[in-house]
């Protein structure tokens, strides 16, 4: 059972670019848009998704022999909910500021389509190691997409990159405001939609170009 389908390495590589959950499959849009106005939020979200996805995938893969088809989705959701509770409590304990900033979006990982899709596609059919490497690959792909969006939004919106953690000013604060001033719209919701839309367009364009070449 664990021998058919892609190997762990293939799963891992596929998650990052070829089957990137955000850019290719367009799943999990809610956190992608909501937490990407700063790099810190994006990276914390990625960490939480990595934790939840890895734990849920491994557990589902271990119990895959016992799953009944009609109860499958319910089992997935409850497993994910349990691990999200753990992740939420951990964040509240060790990174209180981030937990406050991300607010309801950490519990909303429960209904993130990426995780249920991975449980369904990979973990319910394949072995533990494949499921684990799939989880890591998909989370890295998720993190990559979030990082791209957050970089655009934070640099244009605040002029910083990892502003709170590292304090890097990509665009020096000394530039006079009539030359360049932060684009407030990038921090607000419309910026998220526009950035992701254009990023999807750019991904499709590059895919089409590589295929032609």
């Amino acid at each position, binding site marked *: 059972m664990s021998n058919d389908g892609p190997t762990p390495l293939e799963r891992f590589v596929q998650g990052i670019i070829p089957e990137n959950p955000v850019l290719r499959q*367009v*799943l*999990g*849009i*809610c956190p992608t*848009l*909501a937490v990407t106005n700063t790099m810190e939020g994006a990276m914390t979200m990625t960490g939480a998704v990595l934790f939840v996805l890895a734990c849920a995938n491994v557990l589902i893969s271990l119990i895959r022999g016992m799953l009944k088809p009609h109860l499958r*989705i*319910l089992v997935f*959701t*409850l497993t994910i*909910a*349990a691990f*999200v*509770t753990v992740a*939420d*409590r951990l964040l509240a304990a060790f990174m209180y500021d981030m937990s406050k900033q991300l607010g*309801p979006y950490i*519990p*909303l990982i*429960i*209904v993130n*389509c990426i995780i*249920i899709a991975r449980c369904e596609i990979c973990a319910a059919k394949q072995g533990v190691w494949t499921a684990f490497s799939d989880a890591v690959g998909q989370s890295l792909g998720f993190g990559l997409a979030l990082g791209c969006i957050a970089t655009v939004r934070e640099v244009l919106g605040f002029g910083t990159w990892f502003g709170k953690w590292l304090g890097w000013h990509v665009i020096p604060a000394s530039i006079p405001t009539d030359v360049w001033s932060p684009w407030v*719209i990038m921090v*607000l*919701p*419309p*910026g*998220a*939609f*526009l950035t*992701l*839309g*254009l990023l*999807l*367009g*750019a*991904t*499709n*364009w590059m895919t*089409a170009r590589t295929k032609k070449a």
Partner: protein
Amino acid sequence: MDYLATILLLAISTALINNMVFHFFVGNCPFIGVSRKLDTAFGMGAAVTFVTTIAALLSWLITWAVLAPGAPLTTWVWHLIRPDAKGVVDLSILNYVVYIFVIAWAVQLVEMYVRKFFPALYKAFGVFLPLITTNCVILFVCLEIMKHVPSAGDVPDPWGLDKALIYAFCAGLGFLIAIVIMAGMREEIEHCDVPKPLQGPGITLIMAGILSLAFLGFTGMDSNLAKILKPAPTPAPEIKAAPPPAS
């Protein structure tokens, strides 16, 4: 009158100003996936509104009676088991698991109801109904309500059942408005010559961005409306004289 004004303000700020899709980004998956046709979009929005309201009713009751810190039912049961127990009983760690269970149950209920009484509607969005379980709007509403359920803990702005229900209904309504507008636009854009890479989700997201820009225009509407509806509601300049209300 004061009560009515509060309710109206809550409704407007939930449905328009803090629109679920354009402000909180929840429910984006169906917003992009199911907004191709106007009638399916309307069906989806209506189903979400309905499920959200039911889930909000259940989750408010369960949170208030069982899950919140010092909830009456749990305390009563706990004191039956351990009559000499002290301290506040708190089951709020179970919140997420219970909410997702409640939502799954409510979706099942709606599915059965629609299949029995509206077969045509069931055919139109039968596929999407199970997907509502993973619609972020519903869980988001449950989580917001969780923060406002009156309990033994420190709740800044406690909501009764009435406010919770209105919040949930208007959140669903906001989603309905958003997805219907989007479906109308997408039906038109079918006839346009969209650049190839942007076709599908790309152009939809860009349109959503522009729409969300338009919805930003509602910002500040609530405070102005509050001024009209509640003329001079004690602006409280003498803070040191008035003792804070014991809530």
